[in-house]
């Protein structure tokens, strides 16, 4: 399945048993980096579970889980540099966390408040989650074009699912990236399912990576459950982009262990056996085994990490729940740079309505 007509050809460093594959790159000797991967993936897995439980108890909106796909976002978040721009879709919790988006802010977003998109710090220039499938790839090409026009050594990195690669909004910017040699990295989270449609009904192409060929850019597959493989590939692609050597498509092959969103029930369309088999390949346990065997991890460290993560998550949930409702003014004041008179008039009406609703009489006048 590996698409090999590319200078980059190593697609796995840690196999499903947690064993090293082939010659490992020198950066993997840096145990701090490996531990950062592991901490992030552990935190995001626990966070993800907590958000789903919040949704199940009516305290959260519809949520897109990233269960089983934590390696991709973690690798991206570690490989991106502050000057780069990250353009996510909606399963990029790990990458967003590493870019500085806080847990309360993520909860605020999924909890139905646009202020959850008001990132600060390194993420201040990143795009918010993108709901209309694949359209973010086009925006990322525009961002990369701006870097190219100004001669800046920055890269735009965009993510999408494998379903998104069927859309024109995937092909068109990838084609542009080839023609204009843009500093763009496309990372496809191939988690095998676009809601209920399996990978083999999405495209007749043997790989998603080979779609790069038609665009004249480099493309390859990596094991999306091997955080080291994803990191190495994304790092390679980002450095290439910043050096002005063009765009890359990275297909990270993984599995959506969760439902599409909390509004979905995947048991309607896929077999339990398939999911059970996929659990044997998931990324967190794999890295844990690898770290154990290198003497970098033990049960005590695991317990301590889980306790730290739980504390951070619970604090995040608490901070989120303490957030006030955004003022009604905000619905109007951020549409245009200068709010036009007709919206100012509507804003007053909305404030009166808010006051009426706050009074508890939701049906009367």
């Amino acid at each position, binding site marked *: 399945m590996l698409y090999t007509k590319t200078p980059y050809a190593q697609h796995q460093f840690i196999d499903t048993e947690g064993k090293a594959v082939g010659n490992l790159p020198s950066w993997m000797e840096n145990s701090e980096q490996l531990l950062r991967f592991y901490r992030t993936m552990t935190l995001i897995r626990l966070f993800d579970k907590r958000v789903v439980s919040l949704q199940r108890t009516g305290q959260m909106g519809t949520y897109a889980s990233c269960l089983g796909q934590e390696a991709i976002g973690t690798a991206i978040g570690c490989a991106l540099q502050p000057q780069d*721009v990250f353009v996510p879709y909606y399963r990029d919790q790990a990458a967003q966390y590493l870019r500085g988006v806080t847990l309360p802010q993520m909860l605020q977003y999924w909890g139905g408040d*646009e*202020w959850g*998109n*008001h*990132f600060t710090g390194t993420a*201040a*220039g990143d*795009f*918010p989650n993108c709901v*209309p499938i694949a*359209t973010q790839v*086009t*925006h*990322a*090409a*525009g*961002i*990369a*074009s*701006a*870097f*190219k*026009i100004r001669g800046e050594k920055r890269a*735009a990195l965009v993510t999408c699912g494998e379903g998104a690669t069927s859309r*024109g*909004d995937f092909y*068109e*910017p990838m*084609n*542009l990236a080839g*023609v*204009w*040699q843009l500093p763009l990295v496309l990372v496809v989270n191939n988690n095998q399912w676009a809601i209920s449609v399996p990978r083999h009904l999405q495209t007749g192409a043997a790989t998603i990576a080979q779609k790069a060929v038609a665009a004249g850019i480099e493309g390859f597959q990596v094991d999306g459950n091997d955080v080291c493989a994803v990191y190495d590939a994304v790092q390679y692609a980002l450095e290439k982009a910043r050096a*002005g050597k*063009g765009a890359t498509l990275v297909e990270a092959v993984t599995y959506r262990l969760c439902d599409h969103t909390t509004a979905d029930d995947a048991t309607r369309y896929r077999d339990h056996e398939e999911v059970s088999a996929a659990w044997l390949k998931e990324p967190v346990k794999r890295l844990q085994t690898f770290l154990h065997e290198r003497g970098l991890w033990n049960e005590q460290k695991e317990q301590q990490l889980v306790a730290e993560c739980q504390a951070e998550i619970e604090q995040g949930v608490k901070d989120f729940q303490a957030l006030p409702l955004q003022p009604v003014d*905000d619905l109007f004041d*951020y*549409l*245009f*740079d200068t709010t*036009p008179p*007709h919206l100012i008039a509507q804003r007053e009406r909305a404030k009166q309505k808010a006051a009426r609703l706050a009074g508890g009489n939701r049906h009367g006048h």
Partner: protein
Amino acid sequence: MGTNGIFSNNSLQQTTGEQEPATHVVTLVEAVNLALARAMQNDPAVVVLGEDVGTNGGVFRATSGLKERFGCRRVMDTPLAEALIAGVSVGMASQGLKPVAEIQFMGFIYAAVEHIVSHAARLRHRTRGRLHCPMVLRTPFGGGIHAPEHHCESTEAIFAHIPGIRVVVPSSPTRAYGLLLSAIEDPDPVIFLEPSRLYRMVKQEIRDDGVGLPLDTCFTLRPGKDVTLIAWGACVHETLQAARELEKRNISAEVIDVASLNPIDYDTLLASVEKTGRCVIVQEAPRPCSVGSEIASVMAEKGLLFLKAPVERVNGFDTPIPYFRRENIYLPDVHEIVSAAVRALEFT
């Protein structure tokens, strides 16, 4: 830049020293060109992109000479992909550039609608001001140029309906120059609809001084006291002719060019109808859910007591605009506008 020709010319022309603004006698499309050049000269963040806008200078020549003058980093021929043009503009705008993108004809804009509606119009709002989208999407629109199918649409209502974007329509070279400059300076996305029928119809003298016109006001082109004729784009031309016809019958018609379809300057429209008591709306578009519908409904809401007759609408039919041999059946003409005004005046 490797083998890629698009960015191979990195030498941007340096700006020349301050000069007295030149005066030009130009058509509407030449006025667009002057405004683009002026904006690019004044602001290095302004870039132009679209199909055939570079070497070819645009199929209507609106971008003629810009690539030679400002270089291929600022005037970019894109692949043939309208969704791409709009979406790439969103990305560029988010990074501090001011992209002015051309969609070759309005009939091809629909692939770009998702980026306009879901992203350009909402980026500032959904990030609570963290990112914004100062882009202009220009496109020729409307019939009357003997063009192929799908080249004559007048679907401005689609965009006038969308919160978060401006929709601006010039109806003369002077307004094309001034409104386009303001559209480019505006910090929010603007759909700039250029009536292709007017592209070369008349010439006006323009002082190329870089001064814009306000984006959210109507322009009263002719004062009158008996009936208000409201139009925008190419129909302004027939509407002015109709006013001259009415004058021969001793009917004094006020003609207002709406110019900005989102938001609309209702103060000017209502003040005129308060004065005349009669309102005729002229548009090339089909009637249902059109800009004319919206103006008529505001007249009902806020101008009811001013009206001495029902609001009249002169528009195309609720069919696709016909291919050019029957196009004149569809486009509003002077006779229809005069008849509507007379009906309004004779209403008892």
